[in-house]
Structure formats: structure tokens, C-alpha cells
């Protein structure tokens, strides 16, 4: 056998059945990997990359909410912002209470950087300057999760990020590592299936005023306990509010002050069973205390803080929760009333 060079040895190995097997194995591996990557990028079931050619399987309500805003007959004077915690805050009720037009611009996994980007977009590109923002959150909104890919990929909003979104090629390895697993592959299949048939009818949808179109969900303690892990995940590795997110909120306040916008910040409630377990498993108490101090002592007078962490604080119903972190419609109406009655 020739022993002259690496290349010569490689050619010799290729002449053997074992060598051909080995080359086929490596080549097949790269072909399968390329096919998988192509499927991930073309289907993009969670809209992580902004490259999908079919509808994503997850809610893409940043785009959807901006489209609804554009379609409004009059510019909203009050904007509701936040995460899915405030999806069911009703702009119509706000209008009744204040006599001002309102819109619910809350988005899935909404964080301070989302609120700032949406507000900047509305003011700078749509000339919508609201008088008041109502921002609902729970302490987990100030966690260490990276900026949501849907914000990084949103063609309208990404330019309003404090730091420009890195190009896809830079984000790709990290996103693949963070997201691609068996469930993700299943979601690629589901995404293709739903686009070929139709999306499930129980999918989250929104009214024209941005409020979630939802039915009354009876209180189910077992369901809340089963889904407790979702609440727990919000606080994973969190000992104090994330500094970058607090900074993003400060930037939002500064920007709002420049445009004479008042802000109501609402610490949203959780069911007692979720809260008591979180107090055991996480640092929620310390995180909430730090946020209370932040929103009361470190904010200008244009920011009003409403501490509705427990149902007692707004006279709510302990049985009116849809899951471990989302208040039911009745509680949401009471929260809305409490905010605007105080004005």
C-alpha cells in the first residue's frame, strides 16, 4: 500500500469497500444535514429566521397587531402593551371608562424592547402618538430570555432595537442549538400539514381592536398545576430583574416623556397556587420587590405603578384564571376598572 502522503492513503482507502462505505457515510451525513437545514429555513415553523414560505405554526402577532392598527378607523389614544398576560384587556371597556379610543397592542412574549420598538414604529412611521400606555407584565417579563426572534425578524420593528439585530448567518448556529429538537421537527411537519389543510379553529385570534377573541375558560386547578412548568420557566436562572430589560424600559419611559405620553405599569396577578409554588422554587419575591422599587422610586411622575400581584389588590376572583399565569376575563375587567378609576 502506498504510504507517501495523506492524499495517497486517502485514494487507497477509497479503492476499498470500507473506504467507499466511509465516504458514503460522511457524504450522506452532510446531505441529510443540508436537507434538514433547508427544511428548517423554508418552513421556519416558529418564525425564528423570517425565511419561511408557509404560515408559521406559532402566533405571529407582532405583524398581525401592526396590520390591525393600520386598519383602525381612528388613531388610538390609549395603547395596551405587554405580553399575552394582557391579551384579554378590552379596549372597548377602556373607551367606556375614559371616553378615549384604545387598542390592545400586546404581543406574545412581549418585553420592554418590544414595547419600545412598537411605540417608535407607530410614532415615527404611522404618526400615531398615544396619550397613555398601559403596560401589563409579571415579574418573569424581566427575565434573561434573549430578544424574541419574531422581533429580530420583524421587518417593521427590528430597526427600532437598541442594538441592531445581528444578521441571520450569525444567529443561525445559536438559534439551531437553542431550538432544533424532536418537538421542532414535529412542528415542521405540523406546519406543512396545516398549510396543506387549514389551521386549527381553536387558534388564538384577535378582534379589530387587538383584544384576543376568546371564550370563557372555567377554572381548572389540575390544568394550572400541570402547566406550572410554564410559569417556572419564566424565572429559570433569574435572581434579579435583567439589567438590559430595565434599561429598555428606561428608554421607553424617556421616549414617552419626549412625546408627553403617560404610562401605567401593572404588575399582573397569578393564581395563589402558582404564586405560592413559585415562592418556593424561585426568587420571585425578591424580583418583584426589586421591580416595585424600580417602578415607584426610580421612575418619573409620568409613570404610575399598579401593584395587582394578588387578587386582593384589585378585589379579584381567585377562581378566575385561565392557566398558571393568565388572568381570566372577569379579573381582567376588574384590573382595567381599577386602573382607570384611579385616574
Amino acid at each position, binding site marked *: 500500500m502506498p504510504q507517501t502522503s495523506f492524499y495517497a492513503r486517502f485514494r487507497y482507502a477509497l479503492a476499498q469497500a470500507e473506504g467507499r462505505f466511509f465516504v458514503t457515510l460522511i457524504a450522506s451525513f452532510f446531505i441529510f444535514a443540508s436537507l*434538514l437545514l433547508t427544511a428548517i429555513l423554508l418552513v421556519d415553523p416558529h418564525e425564528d429566521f423570517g425565511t419561511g414560505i408557509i404560515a408559521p405554526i406559532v402566533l405571529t402577532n407582532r405583524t398581525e397587531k401592526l396590520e390591525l392598527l393600520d386598519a383602525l378607523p381612528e388613531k388610538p389614544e390609549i395603547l395596551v402593551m405587554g405580553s399575552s398576560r394582557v391579551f384579554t384587556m378590552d379596549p372597548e371597556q377602556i373607551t367606556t371608562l375614559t371616553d378615549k379610543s384604545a387598542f390592545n397592542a400586546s404581543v406574545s412574549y412581549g418585553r420592554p424592547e418590544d414595547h419600545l420598538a412598537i411605540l417608535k414604529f407607530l410614532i415615527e412611521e404611522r404618526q400615531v402618538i398615544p396619550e397613555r400606555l398601559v403596560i401589563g407584565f409579571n415579574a418573569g417579563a424581566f427575565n434573561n430570555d434573549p430578544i424574541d426572534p419574531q422581533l429580530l425578524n420583524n421587518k417593521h420593528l427590528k430597526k427600532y432595537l437598541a442594538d441592531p439585530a445581528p444578521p441571520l448567518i450569525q444567529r443561525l448556529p445559536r438559534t439551531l442549538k437553542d431550538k*432544533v429538537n424532536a418537538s421542532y421537527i414535529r412542528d415542521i411537519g405540523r406546519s406543512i400539514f396545516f398549510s396543506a389543510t387549514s389551521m386549527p379553529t381553536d387558534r388564538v385570534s384577535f378582534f379589530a381592536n387587538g383584544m384576543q377573541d376568546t371564550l370563557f375558560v372555567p377554572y381548572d386547578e389540575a390544568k394550572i398545576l400541570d402547566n406550572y412548568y410554564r410559569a417556572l420557566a419564566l424565572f429559570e436562572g433569574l435572581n434579579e430583574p435583567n439589567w438590559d430589560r430595565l434599561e429598555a424600559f428606561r428608554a421607553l419611559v424617556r421616549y414617552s416623556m419626549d412625546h408627553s405620553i403617560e404610562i401605567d405599569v401593572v404588575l399582573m396577578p397569578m393564581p395563589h397556587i402558582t404564586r405560592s409554588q413559585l415562592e418556593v422554587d424561585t426568587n420571585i419575591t425578591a424580583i418583584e420587590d426589586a421591580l416595585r422599587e424600580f417602578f415607584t422610586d426610580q421612575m418619573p411622575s409620568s409613570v404610575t405603578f399598579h401593584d395587582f400581584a394578588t387578587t386582593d389588590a384589585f378585589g379579584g376572583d381567585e377562581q378566575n384564571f385561565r392557566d398558571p399565569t393568565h388572568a381570566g376575563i372577569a379579573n381582567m375587567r376588574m384590573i382595567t376598572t381599577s386602573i382607570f378609576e384611579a385616574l
Partner: protein
Amino acid sequence: MIFNSYIFLLVFFPIAWVGFWALKGKQPRYIWLTLASYLFYGYWDWRFTGLLLVSTMIDFYVARQIPKHTGRNKKLVLFVSLLANLGMLAFFKYFNFTVDSLQSLFRLFQLSPTLPNLDIILPVGISFFTFQTMSYTIDVYRGKLKPTNNFMEFACYVSLFPQLVAGPIVRFSDIVDDLDNIDSGGRTQMFHRGASMFIVGLAKKVIIADTVAFFINPLFADTAVLTSMTAWVAILGYTIQLYFDFSGYSDMALGLGLLFGLKFPQNFHSPYKSVDIQDFWRRWHMSLSAWLKDYLYIPLGGSRKGDVRTFVNMGLTMLLGGLWHGASWNFVVWGAIHGTLLGITKLIKPWYDTLNYWFRRILTLALVMFAWIFFRNETYTDSVNMLSAMFSFGNWTMPSTWNFESQIILFGMMLVASLIALFSPNSYEITYSTKKSAAIALAFLLITCLVLMNYTQVVFLYYQF
């Protein structure tokens, strides 16, 4: 670094492998492989690479001194090696266990002396590499092996990353020919078998063992709430998990060895097909069983000194074998169970062998499974909880957290794994095809593993030993 991690599969291994074959000559390859192995080991905690180096230097030097001496002096030289290796093992692995056990003993007699309890980190794989280096010096002492004069060859042998942290326990005599011929031609013939074994091992670990572990680990976490159903599922699942985890690791180690042109000894031979406990120990963790037999059981007298002494020797060997797995009393109990079963088997073997083949296989599997209860549960209370739940035959409902999809995955996986473990040829027996279709199937299996192992890069069970 673990084999089922992206850093290993996509970065470390390709560089180590291509670099190895790109180099020519023995010494460059020894050095390259040794450096790669130290990097592999140091990735976990670089401070312990010093321990590996010290152990290597002591045994290399001691082994070269042994043939120069005779009689008592020769023994003394060997004693230096044993003292160094067992001393390291005793300090890092058993110091706190000994102190805790003494404290408990003193408390029993109403005494409460303050004994030192040190904050010692157990170096990964210490049980494996100390046993390897001890086998080297003992074999040299016994005249079975000529010590190598090449330090890099020996350093390469001690640190070989494919088997450094979780075996198999490779003796120098097993691979000395391969090491001596590390630069000779024709060794690429092993690539196809090596790659196939590695991927099969990875699949055993990622697809079967980790999937089953995902469901059963929570059951072991709180044995007080186990029902009959969950207790049986837990121990059946663990029986499967441990086998596929450890044998998967061994397959990967053997496969990696072949990819570097080194043939490591087989470590598993379908242990759940055993017909008695002796047979089981000829098939389970074979490199450890052989080590214990050659360096402990036989020196103790083996079976040459009558039935009682044989029984004692077996018991002692298994007790120490149990303790080798971890500094904890549950491993001692597990070793004692196996020692007792081995002794009983020896006594009744002529009669036992006349029993129905399938009865013997089922009985052996049941006994092994029963012993795993004490192996897996860290406390005696947990083991008792599990046993009482298993034999209460009270509650056969599924846990509420297992929906229909979970049940399909868990029981489907357990069924497939059982069929493989009980009836199919093992990964050492398989004739790996060189057809293109086999290569494509293995590539698909590899991609599947890479996807599945995201989020769940579970460390191998035997890393903790």
C-alpha cells in the same frame, strides 16, 4: 466533554481524527493522541490533568524499575505503584465516605467526635484509569508484560480519550500491538466497523437510554409516592436504561478506538441473555469482571481453597466491586447481593443447569433487576419504598403527567429495547455491512441522534463511577 455533545461530535473528534491520520510516524501520533486526550479530560476540569500526568509518570517509572529488582525489593517497587494509585482512589473517592461512615458508627455509641470532612471533587474516570495503570505495573511484576521504554506510548495508553472516563478497562497487553504499530498501514480497514459501532452506540444512548430516563428519573426522585405501576415501570425502565447507556458508551468507545486503529476489548456480550449470575458477570462490564478476577479474586485464592473460602472470596470481590462503583453503602449492598448470588449459583450449579433454559434466563434477569433496585436508589429507605410499592399490587393507574403520547413513547421504547436486549445480536456480534445503503441508514441515524440530543445531553451513568 462527553461523547453525546456537539462540541465532541462536531469539533473535537473531527479535528483529533483528521490530525491523527494526517501525521506520520509513531511519536507524532502518540503525542497528538495524548494531547487530544488531555484536552478532552481537561475540558471537564483542567486541574485534574495533573493527576493523570502524575499517575502516568509514577507507573511508567515504577514499571521500568520492577524488572531491575528481585524478591522483596521487587515487591516494594510494586507497592509504590499500588500505594500511589490506591492512595489517589482512596483520597478522592472514599475519604468522605469513610469519615461519614465513622461518624455514623460513633453516633451509634453515643459518641460525637469531630472528624474532618473535606470538600473533595471526584475526578471523572479515576476508577477506570487507576485500575488500568495498576494492571500495567502488576502485569510487569508478574512477568507477563515487558515495560515500554517509550513514555509517550505509555502516556497515550493511560490517557486514551475514547475509554478514559468510563471504560472499558483496557490493559496495556490488550493494545500494545496496536500502539506499537500505530503508524503502520492497513489500519484504515477498521474505519467502517468503528464508525458503525460508534453510531450504533450513540443511538443506544440518545434514542433509547435517554428517552427512558426522561420518564423514569422523576419516579426515582420521590419513591414515597410510587404505586405498583410506577415502581415496576421505574425498575424495568432502569434495567433498560443502564444497559443501553453503558453498553452504548462502550460501543462508542470501541468504535472510536477502531477509528484510531486501536482494538479495545469487548465490554458487553448481551448480559440480559444470561442463564445464571456467573454467566451474567461474564457478559456485563466484562473488562471490570476480568480485572476483579485476575487482580483480586485469584490472588485471594479463587476457588482453590475449598467451598467456604471460595464463597468468602467471591463475596469479598463483589463487595469491593460494588464499592468500586461508588462510595456509597447502596453499592456495597448491591455487591453483597451479587456476591451471595454468585456463591449460591456455584453451590447449586449442577442441579440448576438441568432446569429449563428459558426459566433460567427469566430468573437471572429477575434477580439482576431486583439487585438494580439497590444499585439505583441512593438510600435503603428508597429501595424499601420501591420494593413495597412493587409488591403491594395496589394501584395500576398511569401517572397523570403521562398523556397518551408519552405512554406510547415510553412503552414503545421499552418494548423495542427489550426485544433488542433479549433477542437480537449485540453490537459486537453484528456484521456491519459495507453497502452504501448501510452507510446511508447510519448517516440518517446519526442526524436523528444529533437532533434528539439537543436539550438533553445527559451524562453517561458510568461517568460518576
